[in-house]
């Protein structure tokens, strides 16, 4: 009986824990709505949440919202795959080979610190104003976090495990597949998470390059005509997209790094158990 009770307590506190992160956003939105209703804020400067949502529904019915969102998602994903993939390959090569590390690393570190905004004129000159320019900018943004984390992950794999693998005559391929890659994976996945964050921020910038579609376009266009409802809607969409990509990344971590999550459950009698 006692056991069941503690169990229920446990479930209750679990529910509380799950809802805790949402407390502040929900409270903020409620406060915002109330502030608008009581005219504490000027509605032309900050529309109420309900206005923003109805505006969103209106744009959705016109088909504008989902079209712009899909186009943005396409640009973001393509940029992530290209930039993230390239960053992974470079990070991997530099993590493994000392020569290429000497050759490339300092150059990459130099390029890394250039703000993306500063590169827009160059990108327009080289790649024009089409999709490739926008995707390249996102790719550039995603490249560095993936590079740094892959590189760091691979170089910081426990050298004792690598020595074990070598002394147990693992082939180069097996050494990578069974020891180095899984050892670097936590750091690499952290890079994926970072890259996802950078992906959205660079996309906003990228979509100001002569875009006629995408969420970034929607927002800059609304900015020109002080359409606050759409501006706030776009901000909310970015927050939502950012949150959901982070959610996916976190769950990918949970799935791929299951071994890290498993606690030592059988502490009782483990020392003596298993002996004859």
């Amino acid at each position, binding site marked *: 009986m006692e056991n069941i009770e503690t169990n229920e307590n446990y479930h209750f506190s679990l529910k509380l824990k799950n809802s805790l992160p949402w407390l502040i956003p929900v409270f903020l939105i409620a406060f915002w709505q109330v502030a608008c209703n009581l005219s504490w804020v*000027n509605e*032309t*400067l900050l529309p109420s949440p309900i206005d923003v949502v109805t505006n969103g529904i209106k744009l959705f019915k016109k088909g504008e919202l989902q*079209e712009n*969102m*899909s*186009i*943005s*998602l*396409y*640009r*973001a*994903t*393509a940029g992530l795959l290209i930039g993230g993939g390239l960053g992974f390959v470079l990070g991997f090569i530099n993590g493994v080979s000392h020569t290429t590390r000497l050759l490339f690393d300092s150059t990459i570190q130099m390029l890394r610190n250039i703000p993306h905004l500063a590169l827009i*004129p160059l990108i*327009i*000159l080289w790649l*024009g*104003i*089409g*999709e490739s320019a926008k995707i390249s900018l996102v790719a550039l943004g995603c490249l560095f976090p993936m590079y740094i984390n892959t590189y760091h992950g691979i170089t910081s794999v426990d050298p004792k495990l690598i020595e074990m693998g070598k002394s147990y005559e693992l082939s180069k391929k097996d050494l990578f597949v069974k020891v180095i890659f899984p050892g670097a994976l936590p750091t690499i996945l952290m890079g994926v998470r970072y890259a996802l964050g950078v992906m959205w921020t660079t996309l906003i910038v990228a979509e*100001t*390059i*002569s*875009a*006629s*579609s995408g969420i970034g*376009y929607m927002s*800059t*266009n*609304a*900015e*020109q*005509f*002080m*359409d606050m409802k*759409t501006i706030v809607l776009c901000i909310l969409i970015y927050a939502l997209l950012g949150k*959901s990509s982070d959610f*996916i990344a976190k*769950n*990918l971590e*949970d*799935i791929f790094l299951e071994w890290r999550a498993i606690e030592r459950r059988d502490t009782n009698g483990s020392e003596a158990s298993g002996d004859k």
Partner: protein
Amino acid sequence: MKNLKKSFIVVLLLFWCGVAVYGWHLTREDAGSSSLKNVVVGYQAGDEFYVSKIRGQFVKKMKAKGYNVKFKEFQNGAAMMQALASGNVDYARVGDTPPVSALASGTKLTYVAAGGTKAKGSGILIHKNSSIKTLADLKGKKVAYTKGTSSQYMLLRALKVAGLSNDDITWVNLDSDAASVAYSKGKVDAWANWDPSVAQVEITENSKLLVDGTTTKALNRSFIVSPTTYASKNKTLSKLIIKYTEQDMKWANKNHSKLIKKMSADLKLSKKVVRRSITRRTFSMSSMSKSVVKEEQEIANVFYDNNILTKKINVSKHVQYLK
């Protein structure tokens, strides 16, 4: 539980990919057909090319002549000049100031056509209850403007008309969205701006124009510019563009209600605002003339005299008079 989570993530990822592929298809749609010669036209919302775009006749007529028109929207003139310099835009519809700045920075462009002005919708905004009653009252006040745009020229002209020197006011350089907040909060006393923003502010912020372009002679005229090498090779095409946009402009002047409805939906502005800005301007498009070149030269001179441009520009060297 664990498997449920896994399949949920897989479904989410598949959905993500599906949406992204759909987005890819959307961007492919306007790729255009291959047998026609592509012409890239840069515009800003609410301008002459925008009218041609929404009327739809322009694209059809151009297609009949063997051209595939692609409209590219830009957020401001500076971005359009950048695209023009890199050859990504063949014809750009801009205001009167960005081409002058672009010429000064070495962009090789040619004026191909001149449009109408927004003289009545461009000027210095003040609140109706403001203590500023005349141009002379601007002395000692804070005025918002955006560097490198017509608003800078407007303000310079207004000070000249009022007989004030440039140091008599505090110049506050702000982007239009930042300026709108600063103006409505009273952080600046006046705001040099143009339609449709002016119409919008007049209506929502209980404001009026202290002075407009008819007085200051800062007319805010539209131009069509093209990269110099492109313009010299495509004179026939330029003539066609002038001819067909001119027809669209005539249509626009006769069909205000249609235009207002479409524009207010696209720009997300109220019909009242759009009506005000439309009714006080006349749409037109014609080849370049000596008088408009003189107007442009005046801008170049004023900017040079005030050290905004570091190079003297002779506008007439960059003009094509098409007949």
